[in-house]
């Protein structure tokens, strides 16, 4: 179980996140709600191990690669969609031939040879989630994965996530209809 308590993240004079308590059990889906600037993305970066809090205690965080963050605007490296997935698979010491299967799950097989940096927002999110799932994380962190997407893209992403058996933390849960076990609301 991941446990965070009395977490504070400060950037200079700006308090980016204050969090009293957070617990995330195995297979649990946690929504993180709150207004813009409340620290949702900052919390995800802390959980991903990308940001060390200014104060507070954390325990049970998996190693990098076992907890994967998908940004709201995912970044893709130079190269094709296939190459981006292959990179993730190589990092996870998995067979790069799995690329085709992951792209199929994201309804993105037709995008395989397209430069990854020119995808539409919806395509980027679908492929980024496929790339994250491909490394078989224990915890998946999604930063507003449904924001600004139409119904078709939302359905594809929900279907992609349905096969994931680990824990999940999703920022801005008001945008979608996943089966959250609990929702944490950060103060503005």
């Amino acid at each position, binding site marked *: 179980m991941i446990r965070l308590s009395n977490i504070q993240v400060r950037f200079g004079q700006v308090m980016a996140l204050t969090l009293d308590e957070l617990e995330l059990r195995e297979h649990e889906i946690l929504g993180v709600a709150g207004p813009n600037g409340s620290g949702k993305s900052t919390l995800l*970066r802390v959980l991903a191990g990308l940001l060390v809090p200014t104060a507070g205690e954390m325990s049970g965080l998996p190693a990098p690669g076992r907890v994967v963050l998908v*940004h709201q605007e*995912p970044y893709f*490296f130079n190269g094709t969609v296939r190459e981006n997935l292959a990179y993730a698979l190589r*990092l996870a010491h998995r067979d790069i031939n799995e690329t085709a299967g992951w792209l199929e799950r994201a309804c993105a097989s037709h995008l395989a040879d397209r430069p990854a940096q020119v995808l539409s927002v919806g395509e980027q999110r679908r492929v980024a989630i496929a790339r994250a799932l491909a490394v078989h994380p224990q915890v998946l962190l999604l930063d507003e994965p449904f924001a600004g997407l139409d119904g078709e893209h939302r359905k594809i992403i929900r279907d992609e996530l349905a096969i994931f058996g680990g824990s999940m933390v999703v920022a801005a849960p008001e945008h979608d209809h996943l089966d959250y076990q609990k929702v944490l609301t950060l103060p503005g």
Partner: protein
Amino acid sequence: MGFLLEGLAEATRLIMAGDPRTYHAVLVSLTCSVTAVVLAALVAVPYGAWMGLYRPPAYRAQVFALRVAMSIPTVVLGLLVFGLLSRRGLLGGMDLLYTQVAIIAGEFLLAVPLLGSLIYGATARLEPRVVETALTLGAGRRQALMKVLGEVRPALVAALMAAFGRCVTELGIALTVGGNLPLRTRTLASTAQLELSRGRFAAALAPGVLLMLLAVGATMLAHWLERERQR
């Protein structure tokens, strides 16, 4: 203008005649510059990227130091290496003064701050998502750094070209620690300087033309490699 054109014509004739001393100077210039840039890249590229991406403590002071080091005149770098390699210097026992190794050492010191500073600039401008994406997918810090260098490849190639250009054309180091010894440490730049001091303009222009050809050749090679990669 006529003087310059006559000089160029004579320089071309000298190049075509295949003077062994001139072509040995080409070899020395290439060997020293390429070796110095490769060695400097091994140190400065990861160092510059590390500062740009991870902003270690006092990185601003380190960037400032790199920029100061970039502006040190080559003759001063030559004197520094001379002080280390001369008989009474710290490394005097190695008997490296007036060898190509001494020139490489000086050019290494010339290239490190230039490469480090340019790579820092290229990586510091990248948004955090780039390195975060690599790290979150399970890359170690070193793997993430290598991935990011792939993302700034055009800037990396430009930095390497700039460092090569600086090294292959420099004179202060070649003269101070190379000694301008014919068929040993004489480079194209020091050949040009020597011939000009003898009043032989055309003979000084010949290595100058070869230096230009080297610079154009290296730039074309870099462009070709980049285009091949994109195919």
